[in-house]
């Protein structure tokens, strides 16, 4: 029971102190793996944004199916103008696919930098450039154990954020 009190206390504190808001987001763009689409939810507290969502890569150079991967993003926003924020952050995605007998796992951590513009009380658009590495781990191939492949990756995407709960943008 006391955990409930602690949880309610924390939520109240957060609400009073920082007035968190909840948004939905969608991005589309491309990187060296192929065309990508992101969907998910965002928790915003003051200048901090935490995003949890799914990423889909169009099957092409790397993926054979469009099974989604998990994506976690942290962003910090700096106000530049009245309607414009500069954003920087960290993003990591995880994917898994079976290619025949090979278990293929891909992790792509990125550093993000971009701009975000408010176009209405509840909608923002953003353009983001991200740089990072793509790390691939495979098992079950012709060699025993895990094999690793790394390469530099870059990413460009545009996105839309819609405010679901919280104060106007």
């Amino acid at each position: 029971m006391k955990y409930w009190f602690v949880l309610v206390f924390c939520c109240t504190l957060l609400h009073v102190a920082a007035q968190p808001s909840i948004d939905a987001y969608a991005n589309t763009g491309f990187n060296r793996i192929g065309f990508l689409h992101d969907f998910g939810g965002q928790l915003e507290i003051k200048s901090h944004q935490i995003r949890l969502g799914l990423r889909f890569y169009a099957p092409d150079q790397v993926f054979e199916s469009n099974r989604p991967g998990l994506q976690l993003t942290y962003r910090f926003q700096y106000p530049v103008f009245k309607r414009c924020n500069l954003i920087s952050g960290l993003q990591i995605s995880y994917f898994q696919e079976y290619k025949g007998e090979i278990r293929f796992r891909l992790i792509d951590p990125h550093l993000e930098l971009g701009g975000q513009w408010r176009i209405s009380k509840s909608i923002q658009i953003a353009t983001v450039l991200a740089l990072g590495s793509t790390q691939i781990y495979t098992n079950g191939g012709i060699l025993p154990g895990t094999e690793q492949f790394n390469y530099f990756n870059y990413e460009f995407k545009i996105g839309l954020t819609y405010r679901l709960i919280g104060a106007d943008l």
Partner: protein
Amino acid sequence: MNLKLDLPIVLLALICSCWGCEKEVPVHFPVIYGHAGTTLADERAVYPPNSEASILYALNALNADGVEVDVQLTLDSFLVIYHDPYLDSRTNITGCVNSTTYSELLTAKYYGDLTLLNLTRVLELTINRGKKVVLDIKPYNFCTEQSIDFEQFNWRLNNAIQAYSSEQRGLITVNCRKFELLFALEDSSIIRCFEGENIEQGINYCENFGIDKLMIKSSIFTNEMMQKLKQKNIRYCISDIKTKQEISWAASFSPDEVITDNIAATRKHYK
């Protein structure tokens, strides 16, 4: 009878029955080779073409059945992996592979900091692990404007493969546009593949001169060619496949093998 309730049920049953009766089209699965490892196209490559990383990525990450690599004979009769006619297009030295010694080539920086692979290493990465390999032989020296020495090539190839069993050597395909080079090959386990645009000439080589299969570019392949090859029961490989449209186009000819610059999309197409 309640039409409002029954109609959707009848429609649903009809749709389900249509799915159930869908005619199963037999799918012909070709052997899928990665072009120059994973791809020769720089805009698609994550690793340099014909490099060890590119070969391992194709075989162990993208699960290709094999790889195609470009083989050239050095001045002192070593076999190295390089695609272009001139060295200065992808290395920091000038000239042709055929006019340069192996020790000179070892000092060349390939794509910045790599060294050129040799055939022995490629065979360790492929047939030694049960994967297939196509050796695309470049038979012409653009610096001297002469053909390479086919006997020297045959001798060096025999040296490179002598440690392998005949079963492993059967995973090697030697592809060349010069019929004379294929004719000079002594090892009977190796698969001989003739590349050319003249289909009648290719069929003649297969029927009368011991060539095992033909290599034809996707851009010149036609239905007429496919019918002739199927009639004569000649195996054929389609090369130069990059886009999804080209993958579909090549698949419509039911090839026995394909050499692709997009392994994942090609595998997806045949799934």
